[in-house]
């Protein structure tokens, strides 16, 4: 009995290992190892020459409570939240219309949504820079027809950063929303109208709550990357720092790796908290 089980164990171990092995190795190499490495650096001592000295210290975490870091963290959270909300409001009507389309037309429109992703984000943002900067297309045109006498300040503003964020992350909102709205059984909408709701009331009482999984998923998918994105504010922004820029600077120019790593850990913690919240909301209801 025991030997047989052992035999079966041996018989199954190799095939299972050979299937799970590559994935496991991949996860270990590219996910677990970097995380552990970042975590490790975050509890070491900083060194101006090597970035990190392998002596245990919690100095980096204490340094996070500097008011300048706190302010940057706060600014980043607020910007990510604004981005998520604007994306939600902008994407919902579009996703709703998409979900009502015939499958062929819908597929084509979704392709159009995804298409810009095949072009590098930096290049696309550079394109926008050309349009909105002081000597860009819009200002040149407005100056030319005489509506304004000096260029409108659009480029290198907080507004431009917000715009760049929304522009970049909007598809991450459209896709889950669209999926979620498409899944709503049309007979539920008929039932709502049958029971006395007009179109607007049906939207409020049935469609909106039933698309909640898409809303949460979209917000998470926009919120998390916009919290860490640095290149958007690098290109579009004034010199206000965000979490992403700060982390980049701590590693690259300030050579304070432990502080950079500690901030990264903080960012990962935010992400995990957001995901936790999402799965909690998801399991509260059997919506998805």
């Amino acid at each position, binding site marked *: 009995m025991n030997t047989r089980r052992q035999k079966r164990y041996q018989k199954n171990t190799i095939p299972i290992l050979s299937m799970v092995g590559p994935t496991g190795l991949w996860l270990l190499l590219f996910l677990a190892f970097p995380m552990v490495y970042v975590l490790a650096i975050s509890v070491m001592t900083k060194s101006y020459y090597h970035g990190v000295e392998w002596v245990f210290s919690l100095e980096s975490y204490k340094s996070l409570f500097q008011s300048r870091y706190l302010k940057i963290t706060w600014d980043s959270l607020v910007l990510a939240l604004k981005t998520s909300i604007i994306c939600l409001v902008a994407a919902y009507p579009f996703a709703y219309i998409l979900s009502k389309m015939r499958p062929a037309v819908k597929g084509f429109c979704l392709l159009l949504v995804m298409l810009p992703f095949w072009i590098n984000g930096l290049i696309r943002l550079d394109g926008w820079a050309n349009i909105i900067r002081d000597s860009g297309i819009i200002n040149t045109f407005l100056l030319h027809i005489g509506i304004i006498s000096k260029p409108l300040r659009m480029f290198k503003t907080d507004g431009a950063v917000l715009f760049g964020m929304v522009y970049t992350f909007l598809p991450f909102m459209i896709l889950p929303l669209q999926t979620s709205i498409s899944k709503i059984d049309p007979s539920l909408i008929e039932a709502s109208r049958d029971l006395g709701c007009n179109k607007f009331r049906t939207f409020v009482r049935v469609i909106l709550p*039933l698309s909640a999984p898409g809303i949460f998923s979209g917000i998470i998918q926009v919120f998390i990357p916009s919290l860490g994105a640095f290149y958007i504010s690098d290109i579009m922004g004034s010199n206000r720092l965000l979490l992403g820029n700060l982390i980049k600077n701590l590693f690259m120019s300030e050579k304070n790796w432990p502080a950079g790593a500690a901030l990264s850990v903080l960012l990962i913690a935010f992400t995990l908290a957001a995901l936790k919240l999402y799965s909690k909301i998801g399991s509260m209801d059997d919506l998805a």
Partner: protein
Amino acid sequence: MEEKKVMIQLKNVVKFFGRHKVVKSINLDIYEGEFLTLLGPSGCGKTTTLRMIAGFEEATEGEIYLDDVNMEGKPPYARDVNTVFQNYALFPHMNVYDNIAFGLVEKKLPRAEIREKVLNALEMVQLEGFEKRKPSQMSGGQKQRVAIARALVNNPKVLLLDEPLGALDLKLRKQMQSELKHLQQKLGITFLYVTHDQEEALTMSDRIAIMNQGRIEQLGTAQDIYEHPVSKFVADFIGESNILEGYVTKTDDATISVRFEFGQLDGIAASEFVDEEMIYVSVRPEHVKYSQKPVKDFHLQGIIKEYIYAGSSIRMIAELPNSQEIILLCHPQDTLPATGTDIYLYWNPDKAVLLHTNEDKLYDLIEDAVLK
């Protein structure tokens, strides 16, 4: 008989989907408090008819009146009817209480009143104590009860039910049939019920409208339709019928003979047929009799092909010379002749139904029957 109030009236209602004519000029009066069933094979336009009444589809032509008000252009929420959907269509994000309260909340009734009505409705469908359950935590039968309660709690003028028991297993379906019927009788609400199950229709309905290819072929009580089908389709669709095809020979103004390939019927009292007209003679198995000697006026000879035992009765299959089979119902106590025996078939002429085969005439008759 007292004058009954017409609750729903369909006048020449036609529905096209694209170029496809799905409902072809339906005329129908449904009386207050009546249980009327639309019965017909799948695809004959029952659901479409129901959806036009509910307001989910617009009639291409014709008018629909609810309690004497023309419903044209009225959205579903402005019609005093409620629907029970086949797939229940319960709101998955709401518990049973909120599902049932859905329509009442929209009417902005006071909370206490809503509560009372919802609890009453739950009691009515025997689901006391289920308020907090989510639809996903209930069985098919329970969900259907919630769907019925959710519709009835609004006290609609008419309840529309589209194959509401279709997804339930046989035993539960039987039970729900009688519960629904009792509920309807107790509340006195007009029910318009759609099904393709003839037995369901026969057991529940006050009147049945038999639909075929977008038309109402016959409207009447279950007994009416069973005993006097107006077309071959109805005779075939409801119960079991032996249908013989033959030609009319007029003997005089009041009597005809019918000639078949393999025999003849004489001395049939009928005046509405013309010479040489092709007709169907339809007889239920329980009305066909046999004799081993020739029978006056019936020149129908056949041989006994086989017996099929079905518990309380025996079905005799007799074969005519053209190899058409005729089914007879026999008692197990009878001493039955052996298979292969020659027999003469006959029946009480009152029990046979003569049907026109001519379509135009048929539809004239139908229109007359429905309009009267």
